[in-house]
């Protein structure tokens, strides 16, 4: 990946709480794609390098937070669960106030260098508002079918990083990774796509490197 891969500067919202602190990355995508596993992997890889906090939006509120606590990737007080009133996409896009409040409380308490906001599982049309985050990762898995990158939708097309996860399952579900790679390249206008198997290769090196580059480019 090169310099053009970096997310554009979307500006910083003028918030009553003052200037934004901590680089904020949204992780979205359909149910079961591996968002929580990716968040856990990023925390495990980066926690010795960066001060990290996580906001989760799981439909059952505490489910993702419990997973992260259970895997002991971060201390409890660095994870906050936000209830989204049956509307995970509203909470990350149209009315981000509940998530902003959670992010700002964590920022106030820990002054982190990296803030991860994990959306509740939704569908291909869900994306984050740049009022809430600085860059976003959209996670899909091969078991959803190799037509997903071709179908597009705002998450696939406009996310700053597309992660195609569970590539180890590709032979089992008849997914052609080369087709997915080609379609993603065509639909994403040069924005990067990485292929992962978080379960089998939890170091998620390409995603970790992307996060590091994002932070460096934002000069935070």
């Amino acid at each position: 990946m090169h310099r053009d891969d970096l997310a554009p500067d979307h500006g910083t919202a003028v918030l009553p709480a003052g200037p934004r602190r901590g680089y904020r990355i949204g992780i979205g995508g359909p149910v079961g794609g591996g968002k929580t596993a990716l968040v856990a992997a990023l925390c495990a890889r980066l926690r010795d390098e960066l001060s990290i906090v996580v906001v989760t939006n799981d439909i059952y509120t505490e489910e993702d937070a419990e997973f992260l606590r259970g895997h002991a990737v971060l201390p409890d007080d660095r994870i906050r669960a936000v209830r989204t009133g049956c509307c995970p996409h509203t909470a990350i896009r149209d009315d981000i106030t509940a998530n902003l409040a959670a992010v700002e409380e964590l920022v106030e308490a820990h002054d982190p260098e990296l803030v991860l906001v994990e959306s509740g599982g939704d569908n291909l049309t869900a994306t984050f508002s740049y009022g809430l985050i600085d860059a976003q990762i959209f996670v899909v898995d091969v078991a959803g079918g190799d037509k997903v990158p071709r179908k597009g939708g705002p998450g696939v097309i406009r996310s700053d990083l597309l992660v195609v996860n569970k590539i180890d399952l590709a032979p089992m579900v008849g997914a052609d990774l080369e087709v997915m790679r080609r379609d993603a390249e065509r639909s994403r206008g040069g924005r990067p796509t990485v292929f992962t198997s978080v379960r089998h290769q939890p170091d998620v090196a390409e995603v970790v490197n992307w996060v590091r580059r994002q932070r460096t480019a934002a000069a935070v």
Partner: protein
Amino acid sequence: MPTCSAAGLLLLADSRLPSGGHVHSGGVEALVDRGLVRDVDDLAQLLDGRARTAGLVAAAFAAAGALTAARNDGSAGSRGTWAPWDAALDVRTPSAALREASRSQGTALLRTARLAWPMAAGLLGLAEFGRPHHPVLLGAAAVAAGATAGDAATLAVHHLVGGAATAAVRLLGLDPLRVAAVQAALAPVTDRVACEAAELAGLAIAADDPDLLPADAGPLPEILAELHHSSEVTLFAS
């Protein structure tokens, strides 16, 4: 010439305005979980009761907030002006979970309103005060948007009813058209409650005495709010 001045008010009435309301069910989730609200008829009765109790109180505090924000003696921008009205709503809300739900929604709307109307003295005063109750903030926002104390009172009941109605549609799969009809049938009650609330707020403001504001409530929403807050699996924050 006709007078057209409702655009700001309509913005505040629109549930699409970012204000944190969509993550709250107005107590409906706790009732649905216990089988206490099951269909459109149950919902209609619930909304009628809530409008006349919690709705009246919220509307009175919204109107008082509007009248305070509209003062032209410079006091609206000072945090001390707001403290007694804030405290008066605290003592009318026994459930700590409901007090928090009100403050988190007040703070969410303040976030949006301060960007929308950066020069509004009432909003500045409440920002200084920090984490205001939703009805009080709604009143100050209404004034910023060019609306009256009566409008603020109507907005408070409108959101109380609308938030609960939307949550019931999501949780029970109710027919949204029938739920809209229930809300329409309730509109005259909403207007009456708002008028009474605005009148009471006028008296309380004239006497500078928040104790004169109404304190109508039902025990069940307060108790259920506490149970909801401590339950493991919930979709709405309250």
